């Protein structure tokens, strides 16, 4: 059923454009790279603040609030460009092990960051466990990036 969804994506006008355009893929991939840079900055700062490594004079909740717009925007850009990239040859990606792992890690990273955001917003004194969790979540995001690189290499 999921495979049909991928197949359908490739048959849409956008999917056909991405498949047939000379520079479409390269341009969208560049947007994906810019989004990755922006999200990287937001994620690193938000999670290091949560872990108590930087910006200690402010509450992690304040830092994370201050990054929410930029971070969400970057993530949206990544998801939209990502879907476009996949639409150029959906079955190739559907079958790709590195792609599947990246999607799984991405889901986990997003879920963990949302949970952490809420947890930090609800406490005045983050526990060591919560701070540790922020570092783990940062590690998750890094692994998403690594998985993305592997898609292109293996």
């Amino acid at each position: 059923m999921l495979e049909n969804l991928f197949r359908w994506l490739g048959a849409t006008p956008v999917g056909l454009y991405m498949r047939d355009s000379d520079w479409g893929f390269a341009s969208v991939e560049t947007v994906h790279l810019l989004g990755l840079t922006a999200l990287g900055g937001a994620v690193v700062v938000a999670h290091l603040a949560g872990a108590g490594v930087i910006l200690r004079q402010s509450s992690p909740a304040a830092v994370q609030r201050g990054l929410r717009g930029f971070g969400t925007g970057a993530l949206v850009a990544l998801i939209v460009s990502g879907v476009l990239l996949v639409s150029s040859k959906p079955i190739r990606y559907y079958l790709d092990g590195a792609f599947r792992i990246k999607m799984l890690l991405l889901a986990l990273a997003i879920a963990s960051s949302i949970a952490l955001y809420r947890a930090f917003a609800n406490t005045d004194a983050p526990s060591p466990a919560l701070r540790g969790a922020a570092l783990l979540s940062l590690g998750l995001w890094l692994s998403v990036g690594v998985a993305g690189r592997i898609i292109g290499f293996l």
Partner: protein
Amino acid sequence: MNLLVDFCQWLNDLPPSQTLAESEWAFPIVESVHVLALGLVAGTVALVDLRVLGLALGDIRLTAVARRLLPLTWGGFAVMALTGGALFASEAVKLSHNPLFLLKLVLLLLAGLNAWVFHATVYRRVAVWEQAPVAPAQARVAAITSLATWTAIIIAGRFIAYVH
């Protein structure tokens, strides 16, 4: 000009450069670190720029944002310079002819120049304007220039591969 060509050839011929150029895993790994470290450098620079423009981290003082993010930026820059230098050395001769690579270098210089001017001039007086609702025009121009040049650097870097 010949000196430059000779230097690139010499760099290219160094055993570590050759090893990296012909490696199975090292090159992809070095390149991946180079790409993933972008978040540390350009991502943090963008956040400071956005703070100057009042578009992110508005609840936190600019001086605090700049001071706490700068170590990340410099750390990231060190990683990018090392990996970038290694990648360059592995195909120095080819890259020295690549217009996108040369453009990227020029843009990096511009980004550095822009940052230096900002820090040496309007940022010196930051205590005066930090609490104001809007930063001075010169600061905002520097922030926008920074965002634009770093975006161009990343685009140029990606398109190096498409130009022979």
